[in-house]
């Protein structure tokens, strides 16, 4: 809009153009008009003071602007001020402009029956894109030709790093790994106390002895001293000395690693032998020996293995041939037979049978004729000693009727005999009587017809006795313990602790090293005599 000027109607349109008017700041003119004549600024130019006064006093200051073309102040009309205000608010300049004209649809919002276009979809809208196929094939070709390298697939495997791969074992770090700890110092004991118990204080002789000993020999490096209270304890004079000696020990003495014994616990478990190695053991029944009419209480087998003798509650003793189960002889003995024992000496043919209150020595006359004839001769070659010894039992030779049956000697006891057993050499035998005193166990010598009661004091109810097969030991099993006596020295050697309440039976291995004890509380204790008095194994 062209400037309206109140001052002149002359055409003073500035032809300077759109240039910053600061260029004409210092000049008296503000531009040129159409004729080329200078347009001079209004004469009284405004200085600061004037401008300030105007600002303060002129009520129209706020609507006065300076015209760039002419340099004159122009007061804006009300419409112009309104226009400015609208523009500042961001509205449209034109007053009459209505920005909220109703929208005129160029299409309709209602759904019509006919579509705008009824063109069918192109095939390319549902088949794979041909353009992309081309692009892909170009890419593939590029990859094949090597112009484009495909991205390497990400390797998900974790990579491991060995931290110690390049380590030098001899380095200082190696020494740290193979650390040999320093030998430990002795912890302070009662001697180091400031008020030790009186027994730790050295007496005069001990102190003199201590002083005379060499410093290296002494057990204690100091003399234990006693003080009234902790306050009275002086400084320890040898402190630095001791620390120095410790340091010397630490770096001078070669250290030795305490070698731990590398024992595989599996090695300690003894290897169980294969059952085949343990044979012979009974596997199946082979023979049944029939003949007894009542309980068979006891068995014994001859040393050669050809004959078996058994005693039963029906009052008979029967002799069997082992390999055929033939009963060779039956001997009625007139009482319940509690125990039989065949003499283990292979040159003597004798069986000891305990029947109620007596022990019968029977010659079964089986086997080698010479042997049993020799046995008879041996028994008859007995010469009675001049003086009658006092014996706890009565020896009697067999009556002729008994002799024909095979019985040779009878040993009459006071009470019922529970068990009889022979010594390995075949001369002595021991019998257990159902007594409760010291006369429970009796040892007899068949060749001399002499008996003795070896124990002065009774130690419990004797269950079984046995002789050691090789050595002069005598085993007496009472209800809880087995006592081993040395026959030569006539003293108790050992007392084996079976952990059983009531021992029922005992047996010794022919080699002589092991004993097993069975008990009524279903335990079997196996003792190794060389090992200890406790069972080597307790089997339940």
């Amino acid at each position, binding site marked *: 809009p062209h400037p309206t000027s109140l001052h002149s109607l002359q055409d003073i349109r500035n032809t300077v153009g759109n240039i910053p008017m600061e260029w004409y700041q210092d000049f008296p003119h503000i531009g040129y008009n159409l004729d080329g004549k200078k347009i001079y600024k209004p004469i009284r130019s405004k200085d600061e003071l004037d401008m300030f006064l105007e600002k303060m006093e002129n009520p129209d200051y706020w609507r006065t602007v300076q015209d760039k073309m002419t340099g004159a102040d122009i007061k804006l009309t009300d419409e112009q001020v309104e226009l400015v205000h609208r523009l500042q608010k961001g509205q449209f300049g034109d007053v009459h402009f209505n920005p909220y004209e109703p929208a005129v649809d160029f299409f309709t919002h209602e759904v019509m029956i006919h579509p705008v276009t009824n063109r069918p979809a192109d095939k390319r809208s549902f088949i794979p894109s041909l353009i992309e196929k081309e692009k892909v094939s170009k890419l593939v070709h590029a990859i094949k030709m090597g112009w484009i390298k495909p991205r390497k697939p990400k390797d998900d495997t974790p990579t491991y790093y060995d931290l110690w791969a390049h380590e030098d074992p001899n380095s200082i770090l190696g020494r740290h790994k193979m650390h040999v700890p320093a030998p430990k110092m002795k912890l302070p004991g009662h001697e180091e106390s400031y008020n030790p118990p009186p027994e730790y204080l050295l007496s005069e002789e001990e102190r003199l002895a201590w002083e005379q000993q060499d410093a290296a020999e002494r057990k204690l490096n100091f003399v234990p001293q006693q003080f009234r209270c902790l306050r009275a304890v002086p400084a320890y004079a040898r402190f630095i000395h001791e620390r120095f000696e410790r340091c010397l020990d630490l770096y001078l003495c070669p250290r030795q690693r305490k070698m731990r014994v590398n024992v595989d616990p599996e090695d300690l478990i003894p290897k169980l032998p294969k059952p085949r190695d343990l044979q012979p053991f009974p596997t199946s029944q082979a023979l049944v020996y029939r003949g007894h009419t009542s309980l068979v209480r006891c068995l014994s087998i001859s040393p050669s293995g050809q004959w078996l003798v058994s005693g039963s509650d029906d009052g008979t003793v029967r002799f069997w041939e082992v390999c055929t*189960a*033939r009963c060779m002889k039956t001997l009625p003995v007139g009482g319940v037979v509690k125990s039989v024992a065949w003499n283990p000496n292979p040159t003597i043919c004798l069986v000891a049978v305990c029947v109620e209150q007596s022990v019968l020595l029977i010659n079964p006359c089986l086997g*080698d004729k010479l042997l049993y004839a020799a046995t008879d001769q041996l028994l008859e070659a007995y010469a009675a000693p001049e003086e009658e010894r006092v014996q706890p039992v009565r020896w009697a030779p067999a009556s002729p009727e008994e002799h024909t049956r095979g019985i040779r000697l009878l040993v009459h006891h006071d009470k019922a005999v529970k068990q009889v057993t022979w010594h390995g050499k075949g001369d002595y035998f021991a019998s257990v009587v159902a007594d409760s005193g010291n006369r429970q166990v009796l040892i007899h010598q068949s060749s001399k017809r002499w008996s003795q009661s070896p124990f002065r004091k009774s130690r419990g109810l004797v269950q079984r006795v046995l002789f050691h097969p090789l050595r002069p030991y005598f085993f007496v099993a009472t209800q809880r313990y087995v006592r081993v006596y040395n026959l030569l020295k006539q003293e108790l050697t050992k007392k084996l602790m079976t952990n059983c309440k009531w021992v029922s039976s005992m047996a010794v291995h022919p080699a002589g090293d092991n004993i097993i004890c069975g008990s009524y509380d279903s335990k079997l204790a196996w003792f190794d005599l060389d090992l200890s008095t406790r069972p080597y194994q307790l089997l339940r």
Partner: protein
Amino acid sequence: AEAVTTLCVRRYAVEDVPFSVPAASETTDLSHLINKLLAAGNADHKYVEFDFLINGQFLRMPLVTHMEVENISTEEVVEIEYVEKYMAPQPEECIFHDDWISSVQATEEWILTGCYDQTARIWSLEGKSIMMIAGHTEVVKDVAWVKQDSLSCLLLSASMDQTVLLWEWNVEKNKVKALHCCRGHAGSVDSIAVDCTRTKFCSGSWDKMLKIWSAVPTDEEDEMEEAANRPRKKQKTEQLGLTRTPLATLSGHTEAVSSVLWSDAEEICSASWDHTIKLWDAETGDLKSTLTGNKVFNSVSYSPLCRRLASGSTDRHIRLWDPRSKDGSLVLLSLTSHTGWVTSVKWSPTHEHQLISGSLDNIVKLWDTRSCKAPLYDLAAHEDKVFCVDWTEAGLLLSGGADNKLYCYRYPATASDVGA
């Protein structure tokens, strides 16, 4: 179906061409086949049962199962031998004794048994008691014939009284006389065996020794020397016959000797309770070799036909050994079927593959070594333990035991078996 070639027996020969037989055929089917072939060739052929062997093993199950078990390929031609089927032995006689029978030995005409009533008896083959030989003071454990001719026979009886008595039996007059009393053993004499020349015999006993004695009866000159040496005895029993001492004693066993036999002219084989079988040279008395087992040997038997030793032991097996083997403990075959100790074994005198065994489980079993899994027949006539078994060449099987009975069975004497 596989192809099969059959081999011929002289009597029952068929053409040697391959045949195709169904896979599931059994012995009866194959038997029918052979019979048809024979009938086609021979008009008056009677039906005969055959038994079939493949690779030396009897066919006991369907052909295809047998070949699977034995890993025989069905692609190739398989050779099958056929033999006449061995029929079951038929029980013939039962001879009653007074006590347990410990031993039996039979010849063509007579049966000799040893009994636990301290006597030995002679019987005819029909079961008639001919003679009773008493003289021992203890149980008779073993008996043996030395020689027989029509007039008189020599026989031996070994007993638990540690002696062996040599008897002469006059057949015509039916009288028996003790010629010699062989003393020397220190224990019960459990077993005797006469050698093939009939001049010597060997005895094994509980005193772990073997003794060789002369079996030739001698005259009275010996008595003069013996009289001075005879030890004084307290109990004077009648001395039966002249005392005889052994020619040699063989020691080496650590336990009782249960059974002895002569395997050769100068070789003795002894089985013992110390789990070994030892072979001795009778001339020098040296131990030749030892066969070791795991359990007590109760009995041995040797067959010159197949040169094998059969042993019966307390672990219920019968083992076959080769006595000539160098390493000395090779068990060739183990026959297992008994459920009790095998107390006696005997090879067949005619058939090289057959043997019988008696056991404490009351059964006598007839075995063919070609079929080693099961015996051919079980003879379960005894009611108690069987102690002894024997064969005769004429076709009798004998077994005696603890039920006091001696059973005789007739077995068909077949033609000897096929050669390969």
